[in-house]
């Protein structure tokens, strides 16, 4: 990916996901940010994808049920039993 240059919207959209995942190298990332600064359409797409990604991330924030906490504590106690040294 390092040999790419961002010259148009198609180039920008191709690397957008990696930008949002913070996987782009610095050079391309800077070019993409410049493009997003000047292109309303790509900027809107970027903001949409960013918000959707954040909402997916929130799905992982689920309270750990008490039954799971209890079971894990019980397991940890079992692990501590001999033949530990």
């Amino acid at each position: 990916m390092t040999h790419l240059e961002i010259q148009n919207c198609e180039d920008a959209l191709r690397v957008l996901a990696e930008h949002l995942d913070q996987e782009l190298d610095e050079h391309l990332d800077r070019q993409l940010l410049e493009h997003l600064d000047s292109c309303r359409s790509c900027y809107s797409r970027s903001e949409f994808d960013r918000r959707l990604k954040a909402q997916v991330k929130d799905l992982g924030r689920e309270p750990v049920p008490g039954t799971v906490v209890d079971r894990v504590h019980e397991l940890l106690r079992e692990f501590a039993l001999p033949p530990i040294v």
Partner: protein
Amino acid sequence: MTEVATATRTTADHAWFSEQVESTLPELYGAAARLCRSRADAEDLVAESLTKAWQGLPSLRRREAFRCWVLQIVANTYFSQYRRARTGPEIDNVGADAADFSLFERLHQPILLWWGNPEQEFLNGLLREDLQRALDQLPAQYRTVVVLVDIQEMRYRDVADCLEIPVGTVRSRLARGRGLLQQHLWQHALQAGLRPDGTDEGETP
């Protein structure tokens, strides 16, 4: 329970392990819940993974890698159960055409006569349960990568190491998984009454 390698674990190891488990449990459970899609299965997956992790602790060379290592055990344990339970072909070719699907592109059409900003409105109205259902519907290979990157915020390289697949495969599964997820959301929106042709709003069927 097996007693393999117990001699190489000390009470100090146990204290350290317990501390690590306490601090990573919300993440482990969150990942397990989204992989298994059921609370009971997620609980079993967490318990089985932690048992394997404790048994395998002597093989963990870099202790700062605990989080990735234990998430790898969760993902691998899930996959080995999944492989045992499942018959039929692998689905790695599913969704190849979905990789380029963009919900934004569908919503952001001049023809879509909605409010001023249909894509913002869509996200504002997107329910957690609908998004969760869309994620849960993804084929396991894709769901796993989306869960590890978007929920666990793991680097592509770490996901590749965790799942023992090339980074290129991580990228393609991620693109397909996200594309399919957005397709599910789009179809759900259409079923719920969104009119992409801009015709009369109508009642929800």
